[in-house]
Protein backbone atom coordinates (compact mmCIF):
# COMPACT_ATOMS: atom_id res chain seq x y z
CA UNK A 1 0.00 0.00 0.00
CA UNK A 2 2.69 2.45 1.02
CA UNK A 3 4.30 2.05 -2.40
CA UNK A 4 1.20 3.31 -4.12
CA UNK A 5 1.19 6.30 -1.81
CA UNK A 6 4.94 6.74 -2.16
CA UNK A 7 4.14 9.89 -4.08
CA UNK A 8 0.49 10.92 -3.76
CA UNK A 9 1.16 13.85 -6.12
CA UNK A 10 1.79 11.37 -8.94
CA UNK A 11 -1.36 9.56 -7.98
CA UNK A 12 -3.28 12.83 -8.18
CA UNK A 13 -1.83 13.61 -11.60
CA UNK A 14 -2.54 10.14 -12.98
CA UNK A 15 -6.12 10.27 -11.70
CA UNK A 16 -6.61 13.70 -13.25
CA UNK A 17 -5.18 12.41 -16.51
CA UNK A 18 -7.44 9.35 -16.47
CA UNK A 19 -10.43 11.63 -15.90
CA UNK A 20 -9.40 13.83 -18.79
CA UNK A 21 -8.97 10.78 -21.02
CA UNK A 22 -12.43 9.43 -20.10
CA UNK A 23 -14.25 12.75 -20.16
CA UNK A 24 -15.54 12.70 -23.79
CA UNK A 25 -17.36 9.45 -22.97
CA UNK A 26 -19.67 11.05 -20.46
CA UNK A 27 -19.26 14.82 -20.70
CA UNK A 28 -21.82 17.01 -22.47
CA UNK A 29 -20.50 18.33 -25.75
CA UNK A 30 -20.49 21.92 -24.44
CA UNK A 31 -18.20 20.89 -21.62
CA UNK A 32 -16.03 18.76 -23.88
CA UNK A 33 -15.42 21.89 -25.96
CA UNK A 34 -14.72 23.88 -22.80
CA UNK A 35 -12.15 21.35 -21.59
CA UNK A 36 -10.46 21.52 -25.00
CA UNK A 37 -10.08 25.28 -24.55
CA UNK A 38 -8.75 24.80 -21.03
CA UNK A 39 -6.19 22.23 -22.15
CA UNK A 40 -5.00 24.62 -24.86
CA UNK A 41 -4.69 27.33 -22.21
CA UNK A 42 -2.74 24.81 -20.12
CA UNK A 43 -0.24 24.28 -22.96
CA UNK A 44 0.12 28.04 -23.34
CA UNK A 45 0.57 28.53 -19.58
CA UNK A 46 3.18 25.74 -19.37
CA UNK A 47 5.21 27.49 -22.04
CA UNK A 48 5.04 30.72 -20.03
CA UNK A 49 6.06 28.81 -16.90
CA UNK A 50 9.25 27.77 -18.72
CA UNK A 51 10.08 31.49 -18.82
CA UNK A 52 8.74 32.70 -15.47
CA UNK A 53 9.25 29.62 -13.34
CA UNK A 54 12.39 28.11 -14.82
CA UNK A 55 14.34 30.92 -16.46
CA UNK A 56 13.33 33.86 -14.26
CA UNK A 57 12.03 35.87 -17.23
CA UNK A 58 8.68 37.47 -16.40
CA UNK A 59 7.25 37.99 -19.86
CA UNK A 60 4.18 40.17 -20.13
CA UNK A 61 3.77 39.65 -23.86
CA UNK A 62 3.41 35.92 -24.19
CA UNK A 63 0.05 36.13 -25.97
CA UNK A 64 1.90 37.61 -28.96
CA UNK A 65 3.11 34.17 -30.08
CA UNK A 66 -0.24 32.57 -29.37
CA UNK A 67 -2.11 35.15 -31.43
CA UNK A 68 0.47 35.40 -34.19
CA UNK A 69 0.38 31.66 -34.88
CA UNK A 70 -3.42 31.76 -34.86
CA UNK A 71 -3.43 34.55 -37.44
CA UNK A 72 -0.90 32.67 -39.54
CA UNK A 73 -3.28 29.72 -39.68
CA UNK A 74 -6.06 32.10 -40.76
CA UNK A 75 -3.79 33.52 -43.46
CA UNK A 76 -2.73 30.17 -44.91
CA UNK A 77 -6.23 28.67 -44.84
CA UNK A 78 -7.99 29.32 -48.17
CA UNK A 79 -11.70 30.24 -48.22
CA UNK A 80 -12.40 27.31 -50.51
CA UNK A 81 -11.03 24.39 -48.57
CA UNK A 82 -8.75 23.14 -45.83
CA UNK A 83 -5.01 23.67 -45.69
CA UNK A 84 -2.73 20.70 -45.11
CA UNK A 85 -1.40 20.51 -41.56
CA UNK A 86 2.02 19.58 -43.00
CA UNK A 87 2.15 23.06 -44.47
CA UNK A 88 0.17 25.06 -41.89
CA UNK A 89 1.88 23.77 -38.75
CA UNK A 90 5.46 24.56 -39.83
CA UNK A 91 4.31 28.03 -40.92
CA UNK A 92 2.59 28.71 -37.58
CA UNK A 93 5.43 27.32 -35.46
CA UNK A 94 8.13 28.88 -37.65
CA UNK A 95 6.40 32.26 -37.52
CA UNK A 96 6.09 32.12 -33.73
CA UNK A 97 9.71 30.97 -33.37
CA UNK A 98 10.97 33.75 -35.63
CA UNK A 99 8.95 36.37 -33.75
CA UNK A 100 10.31 35.01 -30.45
CA UNK A 101 13.83 35.14 -31.82
CA UNK A 102 13.47 38.80 -32.80
CA UNK A 103 11.60 39.90 -29.66
CA UNK A 104 13.90 37.83 -27.46
CA UNK A 105 17.00 39.24 -29.12
CA UNK A 106 16.04 42.68 -27.88
CA UNK A 107 14.37 41.79 -24.61
CA UNK A 108 16.37 39.06 -22.85
CA UNK A 109 19.38 41.31 -22.44
CA UNK A 110 17.28 43.40 -20.07
CA UNK A 111 15.82 42.25 -16.78
CA UNK A 112 13.21 43.07 -14.17
CA UNK A 113 10.77 45.82 -15.02
CA UNK A 114 12.52 46.62 -18.33
CA UNK A 115 12.01 43.08 -19.56
CA UNK A 116 8.34 43.25 -18.60
CA UNK A 117 7.90 46.54 -20.44
CA UNK A 118 9.73 45.47 -23.61
CA UNK A 119 7.83 42.21 -23.98
CA UNK A 120 4.58 44.10 -23.36
CA UNK A 121 5.51 46.75 -25.94
CA UNK A 122 6.29 44.17 -28.64
CA UNK A 123 3.03 42.35 -27.98
CA UNK A 124 1.09 45.62 -28.19
CA UNK A 125 2.78 46.42 -31.51
CA UNK A 126 1.50 43.12 -32.91
CA UNK A 127 -1.90 43.79 -31.39
CA UNK A 128 -2.21 47.13 -33.16
CA UNK A 129 -0.88 45.67 -36.38
CA UNK A 130 -3.70 43.10 -36.49
CA UNK A 131 -6.24 45.52 -35.06
CA UNK A 132 -5.66 48.07 -37.82
CA UNK A 133 -5.22 45.57 -40.65
CA UNK A 134 -8.56 45.54 -42.50
CA UNK A 135 -7.45 42.73 -44.84
CA UNK A 136 -7.36 40.54 -41.76
CA UNK A 137 -10.68 41.78 -40.44
CA UNK A 138 -9.39 44.51 -38.17
CA UNK A 139 -10.81 44.42 -34.68
CA UNK A 140 -13.57 42.00 -35.75
CA UNK A 141 -11.09 39.31 -36.54
CA UNK A 142 -10.96 36.77 -39.32
CA UNK A 143 -12.70 33.45 -39.88
CA UNK A 144 -10.94 30.18 -40.47
CA UNK A 145 -13.53 28.31 -42.51
CA UNK A 146 -11.83 24.93 -42.61
CA UNK A 147 -9.83 23.06 -40.04
CA UNK A 148 -6.44 21.87 -41.29
CA UNK A 149 -6.50 18.46 -42.94
CA UNK A 150 -4.32 15.69 -41.60
CA UNK A 151 -3.75 13.39 -44.55
CA UNK A 152 -1.14 11.53 -46.51
CA UNK A 153 -2.05 11.84 -50.17
CA UNK A 154 -5.79 11.20 -50.31
CA UNK A 155 -5.80 9.16 -47.14
CA UNK A 156 -7.18 11.08 -44.20
CA UNK A 157 -5.41 10.21 -40.95
CA UNK A 158 -7.43 12.38 -38.59
CA UNK A 159 -10.51 14.54 -38.90
CA UNK A 160 -9.86 17.53 -36.69
CA UNK A 161 -13.43 18.65 -37.32
CA UNK A 162 -14.65 15.71 -35.27
CA UNK A 163 -15.04 16.92 -31.68
CA UNK A 164 -13.85 13.75 -30.01
CA UNK A 165 -10.87 13.38 -32.33
CA UNK A 166 -9.86 16.97 -31.75
CA UNK A 167 -10.26 16.53 -28.00
CA UNK A 168 -7.78 13.66 -28.00
CA UNK A 169 -5.50 15.49 -30.38
CA UNK A 170 -5.26 18.32 -27.83
CA UNK A 171 -4.94 15.96 -24.87
CA UNK A 172 -2.05 14.12 -26.52
CA UNK A 173 -0.48 17.49 -27.38
CA UNK A 174 -0.76 18.51 -23.74
CA UNK A 175 0.97 15.36 -22.57
CA UNK A 176 3.70 15.61 -25.21
CA UNK A 177 4.41 19.27 -24.45
CA UNK A 178 4.65 18.47 -20.74
CA UNK A 179 6.99 15.55 -21.44
CA UNK A 180 9.11 17.61 -23.82
CA UNK A 181 9.53 20.41 -21.28
CA UNK A 182 10.38 17.92 -18.52
CA UNK A 183 13.05 16.34 -20.72
CA UNK A 184 14.53 19.71 -21.65
CA UNK A 185 14.59 20.82 -18.02
CA UNK A 186 16.37 17.62 -16.95
CA UNK A 187 18.98 17.96 -19.68
CA UNK A 188 22.12 20.12 -19.37
CA UNK A 189 20.17 22.99 -20.93
CA UNK A 190 17.69 22.95 -18.05
CA UNK A 191 20.49 22.98 -15.48
CA UNK A 192 21.81 26.19 -17.01
CA UNK A 193 18.34 27.76 -16.93
CA UNK A 194 18.05 26.90 -13.25
CA UNK A 195 21.40 28.55 -12.61
CA UNK A 196 20.29 31.66 -14.48
CA UNK A 197 17.08 31.86 -12.50
CA UNK A 198 18.84 31.59 -9.14
CA UNK A 199 21.97 33.65 -9.82
CA UNK A 200 22.58 34.82 -13.35
CA UNK A 201 25.84 36.68 -12.70
CA UNK A 202 27.38 33.59 -11.13
CA UNK A 203 26.19 31.40 -14.00
CA UNK A 204 27.91 33.76 -16.39
CA UNK A 205 31.08 33.79 -14.29
CA UNK A 206 31.11 29.98 -14.50
CA UNK A 207 31.51 30.32 -18.25
CA UNK A 208 27.97 30.25 -19.65
CA UNK A 209 26.85 32.79 -22.18
CA UNK A 210 23.59 33.36 -20.35
CA UNK A 211 22.18 35.55 -23.12
CA UNK A 212 22.12 32.60 -25.52
CA UNK A 213 20.46 30.29 -23.04
CA UNK A 214 17.81 32.85 -22.16
CA UNK A 215 17.18 33.49 -25.84
CA UNK A 216 16.87 29.76 -26.54
CA UNK A 217 14.41 29.43 -23.67
CA UNK A 218 12.43 32.39 -25.01
CA UNK A 219 12.27 30.85 -28.50
CA UNK A 220 11.19 27.44 -27.17
CA UNK A 221 8.47 29.07 -25.05
CA UNK A 222 7.33 31.24 -27.97
CA UNK A 223 7.16 28.25 -30.30
CA UNK A 224 5.08 26.22 -27.85
CA UNK A 225 2.90 29.28 -27.28
CA UNK A 226 2.50 29.37 -31.05
CA UNK A 227 1.47 25.73 -31.06
CA UNK A 228 -1.23 26.57 -28.52
CA UNK A 229 -2.33 29.40 -30.83
CA UNK A 230 -2.52 26.99 -33.75
CA UNK A 231 -4.74 24.68 -31.69
CA UNK A 232 -6.92 27.54 -30.48
CA UNK A 233 -7.42 28.91 -33.99
CA UNK A 234 -8.27 25.43 -35.26
CA UNK A 235 -10.74 24.93 -32.43
CA UNK A 236 -12.33 28.36 -32.58
CA UNK A 237 -12.56 28.93 -36.31
CA UNK A 238 -11.99 32.64 -35.72
CA UNK A 239 -8.99 34.74 -34.76
CA UNK A 240 -9.22 38.29 -33.43
CA UNK A 241 -6.77 40.81 -31.96
CA UNK A 242 -8.06 39.98 -28.46
CA UNK A 243 -6.00 36.80 -28.62
CA UNK A 244 -2.80 38.80 -28.43
CA UNK A 245 -3.75 41.77 -26.29
CA UNK A 246 -2.28 42.47 -22.91
CA UNK A 247 -5.44 41.17 -21.22
CA UNK A 248 -4.65 37.79 -22.64
CA UNK A 249 -0.96 37.99 -21.61
CA UNK A 250 -2.02 39.01 -18.13
CA UNK A 251 -4.50 36.21 -17.77
CA UNK A 252 -1.92 33.58 -18.80
CA UNK A 253 0.37 35.01 -16.16
CA UNK A 254 -2.44 34.76 -13.59
CA UNK A 255 -2.93 31.11 -14.56
CA UNK A 256 0.75 30.40 -13.93
CA UNK A 257 0.60 32.15 -10.56
CA UNK A 258 -2.63 30.40 -9.54
CA UNK A 259 -1.30 27.00 -10.54
CA UNK A 260 2.11 27.51 -8.95
CA UNK A 261 5.15 29.12 -10.54
CA UNK A 262 7.85 26.67 -11.58
CA UNK A 263 5.79 23.49 -11.31
CA UNK A 264 4.82 22.95 -14.97
CA UNK A 265 1.78 20.76 -14.27
CA UNK A 266 0.51 23.52 -12.00
CA UNK A 267 0.01 25.62 -15.11
CA UNK A 268 -2.55 23.11 -16.39
CA UNK A 269 -4.32 22.92 -13.03
CA UNK A 270 -4.22 26.73 -12.96
CA UNK A 271 -5.96 26.86 -16.33
CA UNK A 272 -8.82 24.74 -14.99
CA UNK A 273 -9.03 26.81 -11.81
CA UNK A 274 -9.02 30.07 -13.74
CA UNK A 275 -11.83 29.09 -16.11
CA UNK A 276 -14.04 27.57 -13.44
CA UNK A 277 -13.49 30.41 -10.97
CA UNK A 278 -14.24 32.91 -13.71
CA UNK A 279 -17.43 31.04 -14.52
CA UNK A 280 -18.44 30.89 -10.87
CA UNK A 281 -17.63 34.52 -10.11
CA UNK A 282 -19.47 35.64 -13.25
CA UNK A 283 -22.61 33.94 -11.97
CA UNK A 284 -22.25 35.67 -8.60
CA UNK A 285 -21.77 39.23 -9.77
CA UNK A 286 -21.12 41.41 -12.80
CA UNK A 287 -18.07 42.75 -10.95
CA UNK A 288 -16.47 39.33 -11.16
CA UNK A 289 -13.07 40.77 -12.11
CA UNK A 290 -12.89 42.24 -8.60
CA UNK A 291 -13.41 38.81 -7.07
CA UNK A 292 -10.90 37.27 -9.46
CA UNK A 293 -8.33 39.93 -8.56
CA UNK A 294 -8.98 39.38 -4.86
CA UNK A 295 -8.53 35.66 -5.28
CA UNK A 296 -5.20 36.08 -7.08
CA UNK A 297 -3.99 38.39 -4.31
CA UNK A 298 -5.03 35.75 -1.77
CA UNK A 299 -3.05 33.08 -3.62
CA UNK A 300 0.04 35.29 -3.93
CA UNK A 301 -0.02 36.12 -0.23
CA UNK A 302 -0.96 32.78 1.27
CA UNK A 303 -0.11 30.16 -1.36
CA UNK A 304 3.20 31.30 -2.82
CA UNK A 305 3.55 27.99 -4.61
CA UNK A 306 -0.01 28.06 -5.91
CA UNK A 307 -2.40 25.16 -6.16
CA UNK A 308 0.43 22.79 -7.10
CA UNK A 309 2.21 23.74 -3.89
CA UNK A 310 -0.97 22.98 -1.95
CA UNK A 311 -1.27 19.56 -3.59
CA UNK A 312 2.39 18.84 -2.84
CA UNK A 313 2.07 19.86 0.81
CA UNK A 314 -1.00 17.69 1.17
CA UNK A 315 0.84 14.87 -0.55
CA UNK A 316 3.79 15.20 1.83
CA UNK A 317 1.31 15.15 4.73
CA UNK A 318 -0.28 11.92 3.43
CA UNK A 319 3.11 10.29 2.94
CA UNK A 320 4.05 11.07 6.52
CA UNK A 321 0.69 9.86 7.86
CA UNK A 322 0.97 6.59 5.92
CA UNK A 323 4.53 5.94 7.00
CA UNK A 324 3.59 6.64 10.62
CA UNK A 325 0.65 4.22 10.38
CA UNK A 326 2.82 1.50 8.87
CA UNK A 327 5.42 2.06 11.60
CA UNK A 328 2.71 1.27 14.13
CA UNK A 329 1.65 -1.86 12.25
CA UNK A 330 5.18 -3.16 12.18
CA UNK A 331 5.99 -5.66 14.94
Amino acid at each position, binding site marked *: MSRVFANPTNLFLLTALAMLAAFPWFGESFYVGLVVRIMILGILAMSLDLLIGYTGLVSFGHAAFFGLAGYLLAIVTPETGPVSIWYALPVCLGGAALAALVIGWFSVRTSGIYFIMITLAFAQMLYYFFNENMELGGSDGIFIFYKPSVAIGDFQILDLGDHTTFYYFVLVSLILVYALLRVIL*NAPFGQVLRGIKINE*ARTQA*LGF*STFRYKLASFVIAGTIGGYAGFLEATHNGIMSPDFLGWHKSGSIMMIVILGGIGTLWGAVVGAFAMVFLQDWFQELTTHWLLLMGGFVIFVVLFLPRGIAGLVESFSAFLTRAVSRASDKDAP
Partner: protein
Amino acid sequence: MTSILQIKDLSKNFGGLAAVDAVTLNFEEGRVHAIIGPNGAGKTTLINLLSGDHKPSAGRILFKGKDITTKPPEAISQLGIGRSYQKTNIFPSLSCLQNCWLAAQSRLRSSMRFFRPAEAYDDVRSRAELALEMCGLTGRRDTIASEMSYGEQRQLEIGMMLATEPEVLLLDEPLAGMGTEEATQVISLLRTLAQSHTLILIEHDMDAVFAVAEMLTVMVNGQVLETGTPDQIRASKAVREAYLGEDMEEMTP
Protein backbone atom coordinates in the same frame (compact mmCIF):
# COMPACT_ATOMS: atom_id res chain seq x y z
CA MET B 1 59.65 32.53 -15.88
CA THR B 2 57.03 33.57 -18.42
CA SER B 3 54.17 35.84 -17.52
CA ILE B 4 50.76 34.33 -17.97
CA LEU B 5 48.77 37.46 -17.13
CA GLN B 6 49.94 41.02 -17.67
CA ILE B 7 48.11 44.21 -16.83
CA LYS B 8 49.23 47.54 -18.19
CA ASP B 9 48.15 50.93 -16.82
CA LEU B 10 44.87 49.41 -15.73
CA SER B 11 42.36 51.81 -14.17
CA LYS B 12 38.82 51.63 -12.94
CA ASN B 13 36.89 54.73 -11.90
CA PHE B 14 33.64 54.72 -9.97
CA GLY B 15 32.40 58.26 -10.49
CA GLY B 16 35.26 60.39 -9.26
CA LEU B 17 36.90 57.58 -7.30
CA ALA B 18 39.87 55.79 -8.88
CA ALA B 19 39.39 52.36 -7.27
CA VAL B 20 42.21 50.99 -9.43
CA ASP B 21 44.66 53.63 -10.59
CA ALA B 22 47.11 52.92 -13.43
CA VAL B 23 48.22 49.53 -12.14
CA THR B 24 50.90 47.65 -14.08
CA LEU B 25 51.69 44.09 -12.97
CA ASN B 26 53.02 40.80 -14.29
CA PHE B 27 51.77 37.49 -13.00
CA GLU B 28 54.14 34.65 -13.69
CA GLU B 29 53.05 31.21 -14.72
CA GLY B 30 52.89 28.69 -11.89
CA ARG B 31 53.52 31.23 -9.16
CA VAL B 32 51.43 32.20 -6.15
CA HIS B 33 51.11 35.96 -6.28
CA ALA B 34 49.39 37.54 -3.30
CA ILE B 35 47.89 41.01 -3.29
CA ILE B 36 47.57 42.64 0.08
CA GLY B 37 46.54 46.07 1.25
CA PRO B 38 44.07 47.79 3.55
CA ASN B 39 40.30 47.69 3.03
CA GLY B 40 39.26 49.82 0.08
CA ALA B 41 42.68 49.55 -1.56
CA GLY B 42 41.08 48.26 -4.76
CA LYS B 43 42.07 44.59 -4.55
CA THR B 44 38.60 43.22 -5.25
CA THR B 45 38.13 45.71 -8.06
CA LEU B 46 41.37 44.49 -9.63
CA ILE B 47 40.09 40.89 -9.52
CA ASN B 48 36.78 42.03 -11.01
CA LEU B 49 38.68 43.57 -13.91
CA LEU B 50 40.72 40.41 -14.47
CA SER B 51 37.61 38.20 -14.40
CA GLY B 52 35.65 40.47 -16.75
CA ASP B 53 33.00 41.26 -14.14
CA HIS B 54 33.95 44.92 -14.51
CA LYS B 55 35.11 46.75 -17.62
CA PRO B 56 38.29 48.81 -17.15
CA SER B 57 38.15 52.58 -17.62
CA ALA B 58 41.62 52.47 -19.15
CA GLY B 59 44.52 50.10 -19.69
CA ARG B 60 44.96 46.60 -21.03
CA ILE B 61 44.90 43.01 -19.81
CA LEU B 62 46.91 40.34 -21.63
CA PHE B 63 46.50 36.60 -21.08
CA LYS B 64 49.33 34.58 -22.64
CA GLY B 65 50.08 37.62 -24.75
CA LYS B 66 46.52 37.97 -26.09
CA ASP B 67 44.42 41.03 -25.31
CA ILE B 68 41.40 40.05 -23.19
CA THR B 69 40.60 43.54 -21.91
CA THR B 70 37.03 43.72 -23.24
CA LYS B 71 36.06 40.05 -22.96
CA PRO B 72 32.90 39.18 -20.99
CA PRO B 73 33.16 37.00 -17.85
CA GLU B 74 32.03 33.80 -19.59
CA ALA B 75 34.75 34.12 -22.23
CA ILE B 76 37.41 34.71 -19.59
CA SER B 77 36.20 31.70 -17.64
CA GLN B 78 36.36 29.60 -20.81
CA LEU B 79 39.97 30.72 -21.37
CA GLY B 80 40.88 29.03 -18.09
CA ILE B 81 40.75 31.90 -15.62
CA GLY B 82 38.56 30.97 -12.68
CA ARG B 83 37.60 33.05 -9.70
CA SER B 84 36.09 32.88 -6.26
CA TYR B 85 34.24 35.77 -4.69
CA GLN B 86 34.90 37.64 -1.47
CA LYS B 87 31.17 38.01 -0.94
CA THR B 88 29.86 34.46 -1.15
CA ASN B 89 28.34 33.98 -4.58
CA ILE B 90 26.75 30.56 -4.92
CA PHE B 91 23.39 29.01 -5.77
CA PRO B 92 21.89 29.01 -2.26
CA SER B 93 18.85 26.84 -3.00
CA LEU B 94 20.87 24.06 -4.65
CA SER B 95 22.83 21.26 -2.99
CA CYS B 96 26.63 21.32 -2.90
CA LEU B 97 26.78 18.72 -5.64
CA GLN B 98 24.35 20.69 -7.81
CA ASN B 99 26.40 23.85 -7.31
CA CYS B 100 29.58 22.10 -8.44
CA TRP B 101 27.67 20.22 -11.13
CA LEU B 102 26.71 23.39 -12.96
CA ALA B 103 30.27 24.64 -12.67
CA ALA B 104 31.60 21.36 -14.06
CA GLN B 105 29.02 21.33 -16.82
CA SER B 106 30.40 24.62 -18.10
CA ARG B 107 33.33 22.64 -19.52
CA LEU B 108 31.12 20.69 -21.92
CA ARG B 109 31.67 22.13 -25.37
CA SER B 110 28.11 23.40 -25.21
CA SER B 111 25.21 23.02 -22.82
CA MET B 112 22.70 23.50 -25.63
CA ARG B 113 21.85 19.85 -25.10
CA PHE B 114 18.15 19.27 -24.79
CA PHE B 115 17.41 15.58 -24.59
CA ARG B 116 19.87 13.36 -22.73
CA PRO B 117 19.39 13.79 -18.95
CA ALA B 118 22.12 15.82 -17.28
CA GLU B 119 22.78 12.97 -14.85
CA ALA B 120 23.92 10.78 -17.73
CA TYR B 121 27.01 12.92 -18.29
CA ASP B 122 29.50 10.91 -16.25
CA ASP B 123 32.43 13.22 -16.99
CA VAL B 124 30.50 16.13 -15.49
CA ARG B 125 29.62 14.10 -12.43
CA SER B 126 33.19 13.00 -11.79
CA ARG B 127 34.52 16.55 -12.21
CA ALA B 128 31.88 17.87 -9.79
CA GLU B 129 32.62 15.15 -7.25
CA LEU B 130 36.36 15.72 -7.50
CA ALA B 131 35.84 19.44 -6.87
CA LEU B 132 33.70 18.63 -3.82
CA GLU B 133 36.40 16.37 -2.50
CA MET B 134 39.14 18.94 -3.06
CA CYS B 135 37.26 21.65 -1.20
CA GLY B 136 36.46 19.22 1.61
CA LEU B 137 32.69 19.02 1.19
CA THR B 138 32.20 15.41 0.12
CA GLY B 139 30.33 14.83 3.36
CA ARG B 140 27.99 17.68 2.47
CA ARG B 141 27.26 16.43 -1.03
CA ASP B 142 23.47 16.67 -0.80
CA THR B 143 23.17 19.48 1.73
CA ILE B 144 21.43 22.61 0.48
CA ALA B 145 24.06 25.35 0.29
CA SER B 146 22.04 27.92 2.23
CA GLU B 147 21.73 25.52 5.17
CA MET B 148 25.49 25.30 5.68
CA SER B 149 27.72 27.40 7.87
CA TYR B 150 29.31 30.50 6.40
CA GLY B 151 32.72 28.83 6.39
CA GLU B 152 31.39 25.84 4.48
CA GLN B 153 29.78 28.14 1.93
CA ARG B 154 33.21 29.70 1.44
CA GLN B 155 34.62 26.23 0.80
CA LEU B 156 31.87 25.61 -1.75
CA GLU B 157 32.80 28.87 -3.43
CA ILE B 158 36.28 27.42 -4.00
CA GLY B 159 34.88 24.05 -5.06
CA MET B 160 32.79 25.69 -7.77
CA MET B 161 35.81 27.49 -9.10
CA LEU B 162 37.81 24.25 -9.17
CA ALA B 163 35.02 22.41 -10.99
CA THR B 164 35.60 24.71 -13.97
CA GLU B 165 39.17 23.36 -14.14
CA PRO B 166 40.91 26.72 -14.41
CA GLU B 167 44.58 27.27 -15.10
CA VAL B 168 44.71 30.58 -13.27
CA LEU B 169 42.86 30.94 -9.97
CA LEU B 170 41.73 34.37 -8.79
CA LEU B 171 40.99 34.00 -5.08
CA ASP B 172 39.40 36.91 -3.28
CA GLU B 173 39.92 36.40 0.46
CA PRO B 174 39.23 32.67 0.41
CA LEU B 175 39.79 32.33 4.17
CA ALA B 176 37.53 35.15 5.31
CA GLY B 177 34.88 33.88 7.69
CA MET B 178 36.37 30.41 8.08
CA GLY B 179 37.14 28.71 11.38
CA THR B 180 40.76 27.73 12.12
CA GLU B 181 40.23 24.12 11.15
CA GLU B 182 38.58 24.99 7.83
CA ALA B 183 41.24 27.61 7.15
CA THR B 184 44.05 25.12 7.76
CA GLN B 185 42.39 22.73 5.31
CA VAL B 186 42.03 25.42 2.67
CA ILE B 187 45.63 26.62 3.09
CA SER B 188 46.87 23.12 2.49
CA LEU B 189 44.56 22.91 -0.53
CA LEU B 190 46.06 26.15 -1.84
CA ARG B 191 49.54 24.68 -1.47
CA THR B 192 48.54 21.62 -3.43
CA LEU B 193 46.93 23.74 -6.12
CA ALA B 194 50.02 25.94 -6.27
CA GLN B 195 52.03 23.01 -7.63
CA SER B 196 50.05 22.95 -10.86
CA HIS B 197 48.28 26.31 -11.11
CA THR B 198 48.89 30.02 -11.17
CA LEU B 199 47.30 31.63 -8.11
CA ILE B 200 46.43 35.24 -7.61
CA LEU B 201 45.48 35.48 -3.99
CA ILE B 202 43.97 38.31 -2.01
CA GLU B 203 44.14 37.61 1.69
CA HIS B 204 44.08 39.48 4.97
CA ASP B 205 45.50 36.64 7.02
CA MET B 206 49.22 37.48 6.93
CA ASP B 207 50.31 34.08 8.26
CA ALA B 208 48.55 32.44 5.35
CA VAL B 209 49.95 34.95 2.87
CA PHE B 210 53.54 34.49 3.96
CA ALA B 211 53.02 30.72 4.12
CA VAL B 212 52.04 30.33 0.45
CA ALA B 213 52.97 33.45 -1.54
CA GLU B 214 56.04 33.56 -3.75
CA MET B 215 55.37 37.12 -4.89
CA LEU B 216 53.62 39.91 -3.07
CA THR B 217 52.05 43.13 -4.23
CA VAL B 218 50.99 45.77 -1.77
CA MET B 219 48.16 48.01 -2.93
CA VAL B 220 47.10 51.27 -1.33
CA ASN B 221 44.50 53.71 -2.66
CA GLY B 222 44.18 51.90 -5.97
CA GLN B 223 47.89 52.01 -6.66
CA VAL B 224 50.71 49.53 -6.38
CA LEU B 225 52.95 50.53 -3.51
CA GLU B 226 55.48 47.75 -3.90
CA THR B 227 55.91 44.38 -5.59
CA GLY B 228 58.50 41.80 -4.60
CA THR B 229 59.29 38.56 -2.89
CA PRO B 230 58.02 38.14 0.68
CA ASP B 231 61.51 38.98 1.98
CA GLN B 232 61.68 42.14 -0.12
CA ILE B 233 58.25 43.20 1.12
CA ARG B 234 59.18 42.54 4.74
CA ALA B 235 62.25 44.69 4.28
CA SER B 236 60.49 47.52 2.45
CA LYS B 237 60.43 50.76 4.36
CA ALA B 238 57.58 52.18 2.30
CA VAL B 239 55.41 49.16 3.06
CA ARG B 240 56.18 49.35 6.77
CA GLU B 241 55.23 52.99 6.93
CA ALA B 242 52.17 52.86 4.77
CA TYR B 243 50.55 49.65 5.73
CA LEU B 244 52.03 46.67 7.48
CA GLY B 245 53.03 48.47 10.68
CA GLU B 246 52.63 46.34 13.78
CA ASP B 247 51.49 43.32 11.83
CA MET B 248 54.95 43.23 10.28
CA GLU B 249 56.78 43.38 13.56
CA GLU B 250 55.19 40.08 14.47
CA MET B 251 56.06 38.59 11.13
CA THR B 252 59.67 39.60 11.13
CA PRO B 253 61.80 36.99 12.85
